[in-house]
């Protein structure tokens, strides 16, 4: 009469669904922030002028 199996299944689906969504969101946010940091670093590197000796062109011609 109490149908406890349905009660447990209902709570499991509810909490499981929320936990899965939270973990997916957390993973996505983590991935996005890591990608932003990587690209910002790349952008900063591209904006910094390199010394000529480091390019390798000067050494190959000398």
């Amino acid at each position, binding site marked *: *009469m*109490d*149908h*406890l199996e*349905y*009660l447990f*299944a*209902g*709570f499991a*689906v*509810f909490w499981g*669904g*929320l936990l899965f*969504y*939270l973990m997916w*969101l*957390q993973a*996505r*946010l*983590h991935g*996005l*922030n890591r*990608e*932003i940091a990587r*690209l*910002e670093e*790349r*952008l900063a590197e*591209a904006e910094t002028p390199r010394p000529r000796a480091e390019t390798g062109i000067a050494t190959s011609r000398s």
Partner: protein
Amino acid sequence: MSAFGTPETARQRSPGPAPGGLSALAQRWAERLYGWRWRLLPPLTGIAMFAMILGAVIVAPREAIEGEVQRLMYIHVPSANVMYAAVFAWLVASAIVLWKRDMRWDPIARSVAGVGWLFTGLTLATGALWGKPIWGTWWAWDARLTSTLILFLIFSAYLLARSLADESDEQVARYSAVFAVIGAVDVPIIYMSVRWWRTLHPQPVVANLEGPALPMSMLIVLLISLVAIVLLAIWLVALKSEAESAGHRLTAIRTAIDRRERA
């Protein structure tokens, strides 16, 4: 970054206070609360969730006819209410995107739609698990269930359309805002379906003209559950908004790099 976020970033992003008056005070408090969201939401949600579980499993009395399975009400009904609230917030944010062309509201619309989709799915799933032992079937094509399924499909269509397009595409944002209007039309149909048509789903037990048809002990637990699930939904929306904003920022950086490499 963790789920608890960075309050400093939020404070930097929030606009400055408006000059003088009551509205300035309200705005200052709103900004302060917004800045504190990662400090306030996790403990408040945690406490409310603990009270909800305690109330639903231990404190609330066993229902005489349906038995223990009726305790599913404490997650099913608040989920449905969050679903309604999400559609309303989605409509407001999408209307601003559609008419004012203010793209700052687009991440909010997407976040609210994501959370609304989740709670619509949970409402359908918990409803099916409650329906099987009581009605003898997982699903019936009655007006309440079918109109809720339509809302779930509207949310799904919106999220699918947004995931296939470029995040910063204004035209896609405006066109897909129409989904929110269709979703908002569906909500009164869902709500009134049990009054307009003969359905398997019971009539509302709380929002009645004659007053709540629940004992006080059950009503209090239901209200605590509602507060807990609303807080959880706000937390999820805040977290999803952070992810949406990060997505926009990533697109902007990629564009800057592409422009630089072409130059």
